[in-house]
């Protein structure tokens, strides 16, 4: 047995050094006796007793001195044995000896640099068979891994360049276990905040954001929004995520949509992983903010957002990273984000991305509690002037397809005003700024945005405008019915960007708790408009208890518009300002689009494809 041979011989350190060197040299010549023993020592990892540990450590140390004799081809098996060792399996003595060897190997020969770096990156994660041995082992391993990476980069200055690629390549895919993904992400963030942060960090951060989108795409809307939900509706804007799912159950088996969504998300693995990953990033952003480096991290995030999230088809959750980052630093990050979005809308190249950008902007300005109202006014001004310049020279009449960007802009303006009008009117300076913006001219233009934009938004907007006595717009729309939905669908295109409100309440439970303090719910806004109506039983509490505040009658006879209508309807309730009871109780006029849309809507309906 190899071990017993080596055990019996008692070497001094320098003797062992020589023996190892000779073993390596002999192996090249063909005499592999001692060399094979060496390999066998390296391979042992199960339940090592003290002597075995000591032997392993001594061998590793001996090899550290002999790296100049190591040959990448002739000593393949030895190298393979060393590089497949996992720090997680050993005590600190072996760990220290092993990392010294790695540093020595990497700095001795260019061939080994990538191999050593790969091994270290793989050590970000515990081996599959590893049983959770607690936090102390994790700290021991990861501290050593990171300090070794730094040591290697001191000796081999181009390390960060190689590491970038390796970190990206070795990232676990989304189907791996949650704890593996999380620990890898933790390590990426640690690299980002470390010495090599400037070089490796931003690539790692971008890779993380890409991973978020991968998860996002995995969670399909069809799973969440089940089409047989015509009857039910959103009573609440999922404000009460704290309630356990069961509380929302009512009348026996009947579950509200909210409950079903929550149930789905809590059973969907991808959603859980995404939730945890986002929370990890949130915490990291908070620590960056405390350390004063949020702005530079934000710049990386913003670039990644523009490249991946903005261009992804209706990202559901990943954008909340930006929201949270902005909330930590409204003056810098918050404004940077909005400015980037409006720049894309005004002067971007790709029309779909431009429409997406303005949808993001509208949803952001409406929902971010932390943005000063004066800034909202400034952004509005830019949007309006962009739309105004566009339509100034247009002779065309209503044409949803040709003037998509214009309609998207108008819809965005109206959406923001639905949320922020009251706040703007309260401050005289902003009120006059608002009145000078020429919103009337834009909305009354013969391109007829009021007839093309999403009906629910338009009606809400007109109602508000009438209530507050500003602008001079028609009180209600002349036409009702199917066509409206048709027109907005046309301008929205295949992607249905007319119904894209990316910062609608986050459906991930853990994330939501971070977002909530900085978030504007429609109910908050609504209550400021209709304080008197609270008494009428349209308050949140009633709604939360599952009161059928607004039951959109089932028997709608719109052929194709149905599924779309449902999707809008179901979310619309939350935005209601009309007393919900009226149409229900009095069987009165059926008003289809009475609510503000406030959910991200997938274009799952076949007719929109």
């Amino acid at each position: 047995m190899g071990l017993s041979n080596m055990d019996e011989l008692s070497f001094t350190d320098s003797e062992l050094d020589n023996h190892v060197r000779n073993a390596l040299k002999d192996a090249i010549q063909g005499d592999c006796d001692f060399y094979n023993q060496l390999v066998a020592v390296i391979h042992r990892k199960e339940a090592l007793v003290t002597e075995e540990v000591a032997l392993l450590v001594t061998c590793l140390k001996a090899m550290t001195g002999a790296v100049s004799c190591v040959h990448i081809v002739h000593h393949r098996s030895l190298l393979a044995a060393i590089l497949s060792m996992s720090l997680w399996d050993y005590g600190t003595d072996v760990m220290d000896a092993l990392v010294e060897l790695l540093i020595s190997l990497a700095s001795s020969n260019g061939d080994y640099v990538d191999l050593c770096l790969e091994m270290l990156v793989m050590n970000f994660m515990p081996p599959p068979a590893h049983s959770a041995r607690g936090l102390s082992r994790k700290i021991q391993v990861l501290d050593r891994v990171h300090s070794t990476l730094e040591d290697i980069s001191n000796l081999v200055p181009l390390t960060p360049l190689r590491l970038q690629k390796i970190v990206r390549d070795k990232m676990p895919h989304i189907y791996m276990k949650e704890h593996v993904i999380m620990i890898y992400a933790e390590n990426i963030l640690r690299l980002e905040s470390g010495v090599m942060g400037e070089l490796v960090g931003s690539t790692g951060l971008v890779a993380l954001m890409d991973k978020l989108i991968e998860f996002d795409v995995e969670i399909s809307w069809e799973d969440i929004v089940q089409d047989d939900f015509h009857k039910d509706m959103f009573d609440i804007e999922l404000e009460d995520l704290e309630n356990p799912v069961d509380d929302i159950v009512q009348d026996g088996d009947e579950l509200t949509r909210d409950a079903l969504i929550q149930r789905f998300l809590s059973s969907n693995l991808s959603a859980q992983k995404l939730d945890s990953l986002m929370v990890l990033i949130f915490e990291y952003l908070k620590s960056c903010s405390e350390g004063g480096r949020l702005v530079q991290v934000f710049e990386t995030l913003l670039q990644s957002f523009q490249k991946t999230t903005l261009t992804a088809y209706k990202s559901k959750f990943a954008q909340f990273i930006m929201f949270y980052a902005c909330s930590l630093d409204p003056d810098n990050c918050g404004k940077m984000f909005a400015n980037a979005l409006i720049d894309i809308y005004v002067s971007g190249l790709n029309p779909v991305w431009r429409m997406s950008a303005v949808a993001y902007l509208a949803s952001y300005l409406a929902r971010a509690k932390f943005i000063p109202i004066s800034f909202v006014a400034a952004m509005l001004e830019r949007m309006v002037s962009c739309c105004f310049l566009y339509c100034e020279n247009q002779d065309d009449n209503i044409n949803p397809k040709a003037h998509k960007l214009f309609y998207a802009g108008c819809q965005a303006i109206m959406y923001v005003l639905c949320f922020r009008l009251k706040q703007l009117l309260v401050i005289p300076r902003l009120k006059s700024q608002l009145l000078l913006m020429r919103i009337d001219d834009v909305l009354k233009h013969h391109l007829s945005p009021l007839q093309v934009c999403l009906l629910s938004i338009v009606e809400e907007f007109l109602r508000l405008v009438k209530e507050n006595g500003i602008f001079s717009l028609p009180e209600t729309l002349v036409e009702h019915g199917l066509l409206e939905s048709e027109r907005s669908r046309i301008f929205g295109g295949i992607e249905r960007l007319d119904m894209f409100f990316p910062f609608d309440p986050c459906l991930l439970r853990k994330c939501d708790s971070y977002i909530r303090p900085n978030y504007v719910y429609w109910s908050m806004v609504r209550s400021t408009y209709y304080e008197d109506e609270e008494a009428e039983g349209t308050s949140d509490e009633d709604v939360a208890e599952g009161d059928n505040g607004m039951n959109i009658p089932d028997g709608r006879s719109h052929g194709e518009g149905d599924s779309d209508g449902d999707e809008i309807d179901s979310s619309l309730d939350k935005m209601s300002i009309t007393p919900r009871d009226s149409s229900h109780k009095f069987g009165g006029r059926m008003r289809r689009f009475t609510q503000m849309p406030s959910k991200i809507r997938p274009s799952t309906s076949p007719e929109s494809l």
Partner: protein
Amino acid sequence: MAGLEECEANLVVFLHPSKANCASDAILSELSSLLFTYNETFGGVVLAYDPSIRSNLAKIVPGTFPCFGVQLKAKLLLFNPKPDMVLEGEVVKLTPNSIHAVVLGFSSAVIADDDIRDEFKHKVKGGEEVYVSRTHRKHKIKVGAILRFTVKSFDEEILHISGSLLAPHTGGARWLDKNTDEWSRADSTATKRNTDKLLINGDTSMKNDEQIEKPKKRRRQQS
């Protein structure tokens, strides 16, 4: 320093049509993708570039999408260490079996113990590792000092140099510069003749020590 050379290259940079309104930025980013990688055509690692674009006209190249090719002349700084060249680098780590240095801030160099001449002995003084010459006590190699060594080989992919301290004119750069007589005398005549050939352009006539030393000293100070 040996191994560095400037060259002028005639290049054509092909740019995507979307870059038409920011061509100079695009050119610079294309050129920067060459940095710190070994390039066969130029025969070295590109360390710096200085482009000068002659005209505003570019030829449109037909293809799947039409790229346009911008012609430019660029001055490039190349690094191409060849065996037996003498290079200098800052020592970053010393071990009983090796000396590690970094050349020009980006290239790692290692000298294995087989390549360190016996003159040098590894010691640990006051917690610090140092290589001291047995013959000249003041000749030390410490972390942070500048090391002069000869190139054995150069790994083009990772830009890793394997060096040697066998030759007498290698070691701690500062000591070598101050004490040229010490180490030049240590040279054998054969080595001296060889170095004379390299430096004095093929004049192989034997001169006495002083006359030889002076030109060498002058050249060393000049380089």
